């Protein structure tokens, strides 16, 4: 993976009438990266992708592709190709004609087209489907045709707009692996837009989490999950417990929060906070532990007495809903490492317990 920059967005804003779809974002995507833009619908991820493709032009700011400013260059002169959400295969052309279209438009030497088309179709394992029409193929096959049609042009960057959205769960998992494998083999930069966090976590080298036209955080899947820098990211990626409170002490990397009920919880601060500031503690349910009540122990940091409310056994783990004094509900997931039917080994509703969370697994977040 080289360190040169494939896509460079500088202060890009996109407005549609009164609506600001993308609000002054700056972003650099490296060559050969599998980069995902993740966010709920309407967060601006698709608009950003469409601006890179050239279907929309930025209201403000610049887009560079390999150092070249795109300005108002139309899509057909840009060195990128797109895999569309609903594939957008030309229904009046065969699969081969679809794949050949881009090469014909580029004015590629006619004699070399059939070979390249065949190669592209074999790459997506559709070598024998060239003469079919798109509508005679399954969703997964159409998806692969769309991929071949884009990749045959050797784009500098491949843009994918929720390409797996229309596939069923099982096929989607398969395609995720296939896409990732293809990207690693070809070394082309992929920019992948999705609202499915699991998809983004599985495939990406880096992820940009977007909301309301802004990029909230850019980082590796681990960074995004383990060290979200704000409440929205922690909430959007995975599941978490939030405990609101006021910062009591802060020392640069850690802070102590006082909750309404008078509890003190300590946690790691991805961004510096000031005493007196209101903040939220985020504790992932699988990072919290539930311990038996030990009569003589003094309340240590980051423990709180709770009562078990509901226990749901879901196979790989057990999800336990507990209620703290003061009425707050929290969830704790315990992995089922034991292999036993012995009910004694599990928690039951009504049990008294102590919830504990290591300081570094509790995050103090603002906003």
């Amino acid at each position, binding site marked *: 993976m080289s360190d040169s920059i494939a896509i460079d967005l500088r202060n890009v804003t996109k407005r549609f009438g009164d609506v600001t779809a993308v609000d002054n974002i700056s972003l650099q995507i490296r060559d050969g990266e599998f980069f995902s833009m993740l966010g709920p619908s309407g967060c601006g991820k698709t608009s950003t992708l469409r601006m890179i*493709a*050239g*279907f929309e032009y930025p209201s403000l700011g610049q887009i560079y592709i390999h150092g070249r400013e795109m300005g108002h260059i*139309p*899509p*057909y*002169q840009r060195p*990128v*190709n*797109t895999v*569309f*959400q*609903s594939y*957008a*295969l*030309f*229904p*009046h052309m065969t699969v081969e004609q679809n794949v050949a*279209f*881009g090469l014909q*438009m*580029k004015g590629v030497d006619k004699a070399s087209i059939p070979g390249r088309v065949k190669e592209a179709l074999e790459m997506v394992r559709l070598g024998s489907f060239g003469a079919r029409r798109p509508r005679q193929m399954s969703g997964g096959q159409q998806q692969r045709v769309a991929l071949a*049609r*884009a990749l045959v*042009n050797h784009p500098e960057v491949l843009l994918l707009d929720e390409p797996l*959205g*229309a596939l*069923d*769960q099982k096929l989607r998992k398969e395609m995720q692996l296939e896409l990732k494998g293809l990207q690693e083999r070809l070394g082309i930069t992929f920019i992948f837009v999705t*609202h*499915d*966090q*699991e998809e983004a976590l599985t495939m990406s080298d880096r992820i940009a989490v977007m909301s309301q036209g802004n990029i909230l955080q850019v980082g590796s899947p681990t960074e995004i999950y383990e060290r979200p820098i704000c409440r929205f990211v922690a909430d959007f990626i*995975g*599941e978490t417990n939030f405990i609101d409170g006021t910062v009591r002490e802060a020392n640069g990397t850690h802070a102590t929060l006082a909750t309404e009920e008078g509890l003190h919880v300590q946690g790691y601060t991805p961004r510096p906070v000031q005493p007196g500031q209101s903040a939220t503690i985020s504790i992932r349910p699988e990072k919290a532990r539930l311990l038996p009540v030990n009569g003589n122990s003094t309340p240590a940091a980051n423990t709180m007495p709770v009562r078990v409310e509901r226990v749901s056994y879901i196979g790989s783990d057990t999800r336990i809903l507990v209620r703290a004094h003061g009425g707050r509900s929290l969830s704790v997931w315990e992995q089922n490492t034991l292999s036993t039917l012995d009910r004694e080994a599990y928690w039951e509703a009504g049990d008294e317990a102590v919830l504990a969370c290591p300081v570094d697994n509790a995050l103090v977040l603002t906003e």
Partner: protein
Amino acid sequence: MIEASSKTQARPTVRPGFRLGTISWGNWALGTHALLVYLFLYVPIAVLVLFSFTQDQFGTRWTGFTFDWYARLFSNDRLMGAALNTLYVALASTVASTVLGTLLAMAMERTRFRARPAVDGLLYLPIVIPEIVMALSLLAFFAFFFDIIEFVTGATLRRSLTTVTLAHIAFSISFVVVVVRTSLKNFDMRLEEAAADLGANGWKTFWRITFPLILPGIIGGALLAFTLSLDDFIISLFLSGPGTSLLPVEVYGRVKRAITPEINAISTLMLMLSMTLVFLSQVLQRRR
């Protein structure tokens, strides 16, 4: 959260059955009603076709089979001339209204301009306005302008096949626009984006992608314009000049005098032509 995000986007496409419970009284009633309506619609047509082959010279009774009336038809210069005139007008107005209507449809669906709502209204008016009002306003219009031209240049113009054609174009355009607009609306805009993404400029995108895909719509619009012109009676009656007879006008004139088996025969032929055109347009739609 992780589970919740894996929603599938399957949409039910199967038409649910309309069950009325175990009682089939409603179904029987509907079925009987349907049968009667179809009889009501088709018995007159069947009678017309049948009596174009009768030997009865009044054409209202069955007295034996004959092809005579068809033979006479084809040797009737006046009727044949009227038929040719009608075809000529229909072809000319179809070509013109299809071209103008397709351009208008493209403008309405693919460009933004401030007068859009006004143009939209103007385009719908010829469809909803009573045909007779359109016919007599065009009659007055041509008379008015022929007078002006005569006053200015001294040249005398008369109503002719040209005036009928101009009028037919005026009322066909809107119908073509409606049909072509529908196919443009159903056209997936992302296909154009995909073409641009693959390197096709606007011109190439139109001819390689958009045009082939809306062509059935354009042909559908043309067939509609052709049928409208062939079938039109009221505008033809008002706007054809003396000596330039059109088939529906000719038939009307004869029918007013008497029922004849010859009229039965020409009506049957007109019916067959309409059926063929409907069939063509339906085949076209199914292929989409």
